[in-house]
C-alpha cells in the first residue's frame, strides 16, 4: 500500500539533554539507527506518544547533521510533560517533515543574517544557524541576538558559548531580562537590545520568540530602517494533520503547517490578524 502521511514512523530517543529547568532537548533516530527523514531548516515534525497525544515540534538540529534529529521541547502540557519524563531508549512516533522551512538556499544565500530569538524561540532558529554555519561561505555576516528570562533559561547555552561565540564571523549577543548573580553580560529585553545594538539594514532578519517580543522587535527594526520584506518569522498554531487538510491552523487562506510555518513579515500583513 502507498505510504500514508498520517501514519507515523518509529523513532528512538537516544539522548536527552537538560537545557533549562523546563526545556529538554531530545535526540531521535529511527530504530535502525539512521535518521528518520531529511528536512530543511525551519521544518517541523509531529511527535507523539500514543495515548498521550501528538504535537508539532520544530526540528532544532540542522539538516547537515547526518546522524540524528534533535527537538528542544518546553514543558507546557500533557504531551510535553510526558516527553520530559522519558528516559533514553524510549520509542516515540514521528512523522514529517512538515512546512516550508526557511529559504536558506535561495533568499538567504549570500545575505548577512541577523537572528533574533527569545526563550524557546531559539529552537527553530538553531537549525538555520547551524546550517549556515556549516555552509559558512555561502552567507555573509551572522549576528545572533538571543535573550531569555534568566541565565538558566537560555537554551543551548553550552553550544552557544563553546561553538557559536568562538566562531569567526558569528557575533552572538546574549541578554537576560533581569540582573542575576554570575551574569556579566547584557541585561534587558530583546527588543530594546536590538535597538541598542543598532544593526545595519543590509541584513535579512530571522526572528522567533513570544508574540509580544516579536511585536516590539518588529517595531524596533522598522525604526532602524528595516523593511518587512527583510524579516522572516516562524509561526505556531494548533495542528493536527500537518498537511493542510484538517482545517485548524489556517490564518486566512494560508495553512501554517503547509504554507508556513515560515512567513515573511509582509506576507503576514496580508493575512487577517487571527494568530
Amino acid at each position: 500500500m502507498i505510504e500514508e502521511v498520517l501514519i507515523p514512523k518509529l523513532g528512538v530517543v537516544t539522548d536527552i539533554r537538560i537545557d533549562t529547568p523546563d526545556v529538554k532537548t531530545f535526540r531521535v533516530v529511527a530504530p535502525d539507527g539512521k535518521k528518520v527523514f531529511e528536512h530543511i531548516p525551519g521544518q517541523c515534525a509531529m511527535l507523539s506518544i500514543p495515548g498521550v497525544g501528538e504535537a508539532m515540534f520544530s526540528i532544532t538540529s540542522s539538516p547537515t547533521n547526518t546522524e540524528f534529529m534533535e527537538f528542544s521541547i518546553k514543558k507546557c502540557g500533557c504531551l510535553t510533560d510526558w516527553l520530559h519524563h522519558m528516559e533514553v531508549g524510549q520509542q516515540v512516533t514521528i512523522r514529517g517533515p512538515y512546512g516550508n522551512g526557511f529559504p536558506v538556499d535561495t533568499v538567504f544565500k549570500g545575505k548577512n543574517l541577523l537572528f533574533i530569538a527569545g526563550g524557546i524561540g531559539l529552537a527553530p532558529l538553531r537549525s538555520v544557524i547551524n546550517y549556515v554555519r556549516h555552509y559558512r561561505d555561502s552567507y555573509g555576516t551572522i549576528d545572533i541576538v538571543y535573550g531569555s528570562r534568566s541565565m538558566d533559561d537560555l537554551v543551548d547555552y553550552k553550544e552557544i558559548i563553546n561553538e557559536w561565540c568562538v566562531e569567526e564571523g558569528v557575533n552572538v549577543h546574549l541578554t537576560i531580562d533581569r540582573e542575576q548573580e554570575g551574569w556579566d553580560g547584557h541585561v534587558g529585553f530583546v527588543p530594546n537590545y536590538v535597538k541598542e545594538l543598532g544593526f545595519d539594514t543590509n541584513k535579512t532578519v530571522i526572528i522567533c520568540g513570544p508574540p509580544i517580543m516579536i511585536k516590539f522587535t518588529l517595531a524596533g527594526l522598522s525604526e532602524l530602517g528595516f523593511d518587512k520584506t527583510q524579516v522572516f518569522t516562524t509561526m505556531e498554531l494548533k495542528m493536527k494533520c500537518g498537511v493542510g487538510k484538517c482545517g485548524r491552523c489556517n490564518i486566512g487562506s494560508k495553512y501554517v503547517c503547509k504554507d508556513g510555518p515560515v512567513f515573511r513579515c509582509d506576507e503576514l500583513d496580508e493575512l487577517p490578524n487571527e494568530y
Partner: protein
Amino acid sequence: MVKISFEKLNSLFEKISEKYDLFVPTKKNDGQSYFEKWEQGKTVSDDLNTVRSAKDFFFPQHEDIVSFKLDGKNIEITDERREVRPFVMFGVRACDVRSFSILDKVFLSEPVDTFYKAKREKGIVISLACQKPSETCFCTTFGIDPTEPEGDIRAWKGNDCYYLEGVTEKGNALLSELSLEECDRTEVDAQIENTKKILDRLPLGKLDTDSFGGDKLKELFDSEKWASLSESCLGCGTCTFVCPTCQCYDIKDFETGHGVKRYRCWDSCMYSDFTKMAHGNPRLTQLERFRQRFMHKLVYFPANNSGEFGCVGCGRCLNKCPISMNIVKVMKTLKGEN
C-alpha cells in the same frame, strides 16, 4: 442514454450488488432519508436530499488510521487501512456530487490522503437529477445544474423508468456491464425544461456571489456584521456535520485497554476547542469561529482553488441549524441585503 423500468430496478440493483456494495437513499421511520446499503425490499426514497450528505462515503465520520501497542519503552505500529470493496452510490443529487470535487481538492492535493483516495477510486457515483427542488435549494448560485448532475453516471427519474447516461469512463464501464435498453432523451429533455422553470421560481435562486471570493478577504474579515450574525450561534457542529463540503477533522487516540487506536473523525471549526492549544487559542470567541466557517467557504477556499466556492447550495444547514442561522443569511447580511 439507456433506461430501466421501475419493475426491473430491483433486478438491476441485484446485479450491481453482486460486484459492488450498493447504497441508495432510503426513508427511515423518522421520516427522513439516509443512504443505506441496498438489500432486497429496500426502495429508493424520492426525497430531495438525505439528512447526512454523501460525503460520508469518502470521508466517514470516523475511521481508524493506525493502532499502537505499547510495551515498556517500545511501540508497535499497525496500519489500520483496510481494503475497500467497490461500491456504487445511487441517487446522489447534483449538489452532493459537486461536493466530491470540492473534497477532492483538499484530499487529493499533495500529500494525498490515501484513506480518501482509496474510497474515491472504488466508488461509482450515480447521480439523480432533481425535479422538485426545495425552497432551501441554491445550488444554481454555484453554477450547479441540478437537472443535469455530474457524477460517473447521471440519472433521471421518468414516469415509469429511470434514464441513465454514462459520464465518466468508470460510469460508462459500469453501464456497459449492465447492458440496459437504449432509449432517446425526449422525456428527459422535457423534464429538464420543466425543472428549469421551477428553478427560476426558487426564492434563493437569485443569490449571487459577486461580493465574495479570495480577493475580498480583508473587507469581509473585518466586517462588523459578524458580531450580530454570530451572537446566537450555539457553537454546535450541526451545520458542519450535515454539510457536504465541510472536511475539517480531528485525530484522536483511544486507549482500548490493550493498545491505542488512533482514529480520525469529523471536527467542527464551530467548536470552542477546535484551535485551542496548551497556551492560548487564536479563535477565542464564537464570533471568530463562526467567521472562520463562512470565510472558509466564501473566501479562503476560493482563494486557494481558483475562485471555486466551498459551498454547493444543498440547503442542509438551512434546514438543520438549531437557530436557523446559515450561509444564506450570512451572505445576504454581508452584502447588506438583510
